[in-house]
């Protein structure tokens, strides 16, 4: 479904990605784990069309999307929940969700908003609240809800567990799993390798711009190198 080949991305002199290959199949949860600065966010931003690669390509359902502008990529069905949530802080919860449906012209937007409210009842109670005043966990729910409003075929998630209490992280991951069960393919970037590997089908380990390991999540969970570097020994 999503295919990344020999992707090279740099910021000026800094080579953030040095030729990575990865694949996401229809219906999967795939995770990319890696330390700070490994290039995880760079990968997602390049898929979303915000960053342009120096070399390599990205294909979505066999269509080359490498040079397409960000709005076309959203329109094709790839939507991202960026690192740090980046909700529109001075707009209401409802307006944030409407922004997620920005490109949609069908008349199912209202009922999809109900679905998001069903998934996150706390957003429903706060639909008129200014998004910047939500708690961190609620902001994460909003960021996910906002992306779902675009009806993505593939949802890219960048560190959804960042800065959240363990119990909230559990909830968020349960929700991610259920979004996947409803038919959305997921590419999940995480530093919380334990949680990520527990819900993913397959995983890639990214180390300073290169993929160092890949395989089934259940296998990587027990890999000595992964245990040592990412699962705390």
């Amino acid at each position, binding site marked *: 479904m999503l295919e990344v080949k020999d992707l090279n991305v740099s910021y000026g002199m800094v080579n953030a990605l040095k030729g990575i290959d990865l694949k996401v199949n229809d219906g999967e949860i795939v995770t990319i784990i890696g330390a700070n600065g490994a290039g995880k966010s760079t990968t997602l931003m390049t898929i979303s069309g*915000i960053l342009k690669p120096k070399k390599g390509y990205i294909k979505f359902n066999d269509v080359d999307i490498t040079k397409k*502008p960000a*709005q076309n990529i959203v329109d094709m069905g790839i939507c991202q929940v*960026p690192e740090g949530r980046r909700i529109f802080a001075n707009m209401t919860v409802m307006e944030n969700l409407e*922004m997620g449906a920005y490109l949609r012209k069908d008349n199912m937007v209202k009922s999809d908003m109900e679905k998001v409210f069903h998934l996150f009842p706390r957003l429903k109670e706060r639909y008129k609240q200014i998004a910047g*005043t939500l708690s961190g966990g609620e*902001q994460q729910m909003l960021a996910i809800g906002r992306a779902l409003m675009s009806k993505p075929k593939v949802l890219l998630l960048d560190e959804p567990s960042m*800065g959240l209490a363990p119990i909230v992280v559990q909830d968020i991951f349960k929700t991610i799993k259920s979004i996947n069960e409803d038919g959305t393919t997921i590419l999940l970037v995480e530093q919380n390798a334990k949680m990520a590997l527990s819900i993913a089908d397959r995983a890639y380990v990214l180390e300073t711009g290169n993929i160092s390991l890949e395989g089934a999540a259940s296998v990587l969970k027990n890999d000595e190198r992964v245990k040592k570097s990412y699962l705390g020994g």
Partner: protein
Amino acid sequence: MKTFIEQLINGLSLGSIYALIALGYTMVYGIMKLINFAHGDIYMVGAFTGFFASTYLHLGFVPSLLLAMLVSLILGVTIERVAYRPLRDKSKISILITAIGVSLLLENGGIILLSPQVRTYPQIFKQHMYSFFNGIITISNQQIVIFVVSIIMMVGLQLIIYKTKIGKAMRAVSTDPDAAKLMGVNVDRTVSFTFAIGSALAAVAGVLVGIYYNSIDPLMGIMPGLKAFIAAVLGGIGIIPGAMVGGLLMGVIEALVSGYGSSLYRDGVSFAILIIILLIKPTGLFGKNVREKV
């Protein structure tokens, strides 16, 4: 009391005009963090378009106003497209210097094309005074036109920004352009739209000033441009209601200072008051720090 009310009405008329100009500064700043120095000159072009439309084409007030809005809108969008957009990802300072260059180009181009002479605006509305409450409140028909037109424009703007899709996109881009892109917003188009609206509002201010003061010239944009910019900062740059209130406040302070003191001190005293307000509240009257959680 009578002077006070008189000056208040004068101040609100002038302030409405400042507010209309200030909105363009604040919207452009909000969306691309740029002080568009050419904005005062777009206002000048609007005033001249209105002048030519009514003097030579013999158009009425509303058609002249619409034509002025259209010409300034095209000018504003073109300036953004040609001069600012190629520099948007470059350093802030280069785009700022470009804006100053565009401003000088329009001012000196105006002097060459239109001659530096001051033109007399046609009397679209023959002055007529209305008085209420035994003459305590007197207001001219021109001032009424200024109020009515400004209110229509500001209400219209609020509707666009809060009720339409493109308005929401403008707000989203001004908080976080990349996040807006991730939701499918075409940032270039949104920026163009912002310049279009801001420039059209400046043209309205230009036509209203022509009607109110009867005279226009190619350098007329400099001083009101500066004052409207300060009004935008005073209200909190990037914040739309701030620009409206800042503009009105600026006009009222100016009118009261000239009414009670001397018009010689007008600019000095009003700038001093603004400096004091900004010392107390550096983010402007409406400026606030949105709490962000990480």
